[in-house]
């Protein structure tokens, strides 16, 4: 099955390209100390606001003379970290609450689903900002808050899947053999519901990266001097008249990253849909 998924994914050129860029980004952020041409935090007042193409600074320098390319490379670490940790938190909460609601039904289901509906009533940006106001902005708080406000989609998916899976023969058999609720859910049911969750999580990484960059842009996300794409754009805004490159490249980095995760996610959705798999020639 895994092989088939890879094959479908491979045939979808856009998804394959998205996947390749995602892998490249992993490599870039892992190798950041080795490949970044300068120290991202090294201030050089004599070289401030140099345009792209200046010797030694391929993408120019910012108002403190820091190398934009190096800051972009190091900024990818923040994006990936926030993307994965936030989505990890959201997925865990969603799996837990979704399984609780879908497996037990009744009152548990009612409570979880009403809570889900309530959370969806808030514009997520408002909720996130309110919590950030209380918790102090920092990379950990950003990840936690994005996670806490992003679990509803997964919960609904898992609930719907478990409601239909729990009465299948294999689940009944497991229960008849004396498996407890936890074991039936974790060993027998959830593995069968992971496909759509994986798609949602992949698209969720893209969303989390966008949210983090918005928060950092507003000055309520990851705090300076840590280089992040969002906070680099804040500076770009202040130097819009003098240095267009400060506003261009970090946004381009966000665009390409988010686009890649979205393409990969859509490709996965297609690959995991049995409807599409059957339609492929063998």
């Amino acid at each position, binding site marked *: 099955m895994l092989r088939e998924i890879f094959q479908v994914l491979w045939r979808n050129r856009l998804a394959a390209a998205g996947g390749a860029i995602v892998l490249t980004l992993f490599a870039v952020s892992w190798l950041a100390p080795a490949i970044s041409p300068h120290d991202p935090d090294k201030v050089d007042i004599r070289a401030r606001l140099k345009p792209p193409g200046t010797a030694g600074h391929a993408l120019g320098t910012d108002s403190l003379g820091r190398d934009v390319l190096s800051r972009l490379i190091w900024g990818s670490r923040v994006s990936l970290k926030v993307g994965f940790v936030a989505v990890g938190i959201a997925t865990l909460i969603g799996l837990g609450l979704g399984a609780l609601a879908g497996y037990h039904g009744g009152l548990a289901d009612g409570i979880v689903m009403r809570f889900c509906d309530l959370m969806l*009533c*808030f514009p997520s940006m408002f909720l996130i900002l309110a919590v950030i106001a209380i918790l102090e902005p920092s990379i950990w708080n950003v990840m936690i808050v994005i996670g806490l406000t992003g679990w509803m989609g997964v919960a609904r998916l898992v609930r719907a899947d478990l409601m239909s899976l729990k009465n299948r023969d294999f689940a009944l058999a497991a229960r008849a053999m004396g498996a407890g609720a936890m074991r039936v859910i974790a060993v027998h049911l959830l593995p069968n519901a992971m496909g759509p969750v994986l798609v949602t999580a992949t698209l969720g990484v893209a969303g989390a990266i966008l949210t983090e960059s918005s928060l950092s842009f507003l000055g309520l996300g990851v705090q300076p001097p840590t280089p992040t794409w*969002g906070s680099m754009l804040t500076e770009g805004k202040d130097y819009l008249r003098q240095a267009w490159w400060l506003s261009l490249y970090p946004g381009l980095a966000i665009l390409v990253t988010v686009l890649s995760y979205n393409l990969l996610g859509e490709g996965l959705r297609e690959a995991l849909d049995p409807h599409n798999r059957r339609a492929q020639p063998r």
Partner: protein
Amino acid sequence: MLRYTATRLLMMIPTLLGITVISFTVMHLAPGDPVNYILDANPKASQTARARLRELYGLDKPIHVQYWNWLKSLARFDLGLSFAPDRRPVRDKIVERLPVTLALNVFSLAIILALSLPLGLVAAVRAGGLFDRGSTVFVFVCFAAPSFWIALLGMYLFGVRLGWLPISGLTSLDHGSMTEFGKLCDLARHLAMPVLISSLGGLAGISRYLRSNMLEIIRQDFLTTARAKGLSERTVIVKHALRNALIPVITILGLSVPGLVGGSVIMESIYAIPGLGQLFYASVMGRDYPVVMGGLVMGAVLTLAGNLLADLGYAAADPRVRDAAFK
């Protein structure tokens, strides 16, 4: 229809209560003494002054009493006093800013609707063609590009480079001396960029949704029947297919309200527009808890209102929904 509306309104009451519980809980997760924020953590403030402030804001009471009192005053549309130095009522602060944000979002919704219809329609009718593929790329880029970045690029291109549009505020400095028509034009010029840019996300989503909806409907039997009757292709597409594809779009429009309201925080802070989003942002930065709490409730209420309008619109357009509610 009246009965449907009434039921739908009644169903909102528990949701509203839930919203107040969540807002209240979030705001009371704050560690430390809120009085410190009012006093800017001034250590010189005497104990009696602190006690007096605590009493003024009701902070000396147990938490459930505080919630109940807050709820009671909320029912009278009294949101308390701001922590900011001006100590103005939160309600006044929100009410004076609300029209700006509402106008911004209503214009955005109008643009979303006006542009996504032809976009989705043509993409579906000529599926696989050049236009379809081009619009697919456009949609994916719109989804992936952070709105504040597009806003920055727009400010650079149209504001700094070309000098066509102003890049901040709602009015020019000489606004007062303009004619009525001039004032209107001035306002429109200031709103053009924020409105267009904040509608990009919804535009992408809805044109995409309409496209897949149309593709589904185009395959159905009643369209073959319509063609077999000898109707022109135009009538078939516009009268028979588009009408059916449009109904679910009403719901999606309603669902895009929280995104727009949330996005107004970013748009309004970038373009320095004095709306609810900017107020919310400033209050978050200044830890003005009563205003943040009021803004949170207001944001949720706007979302609920959007959902309500969408549901009512759907029921008006599709009699099956209206009747199903009572079966």
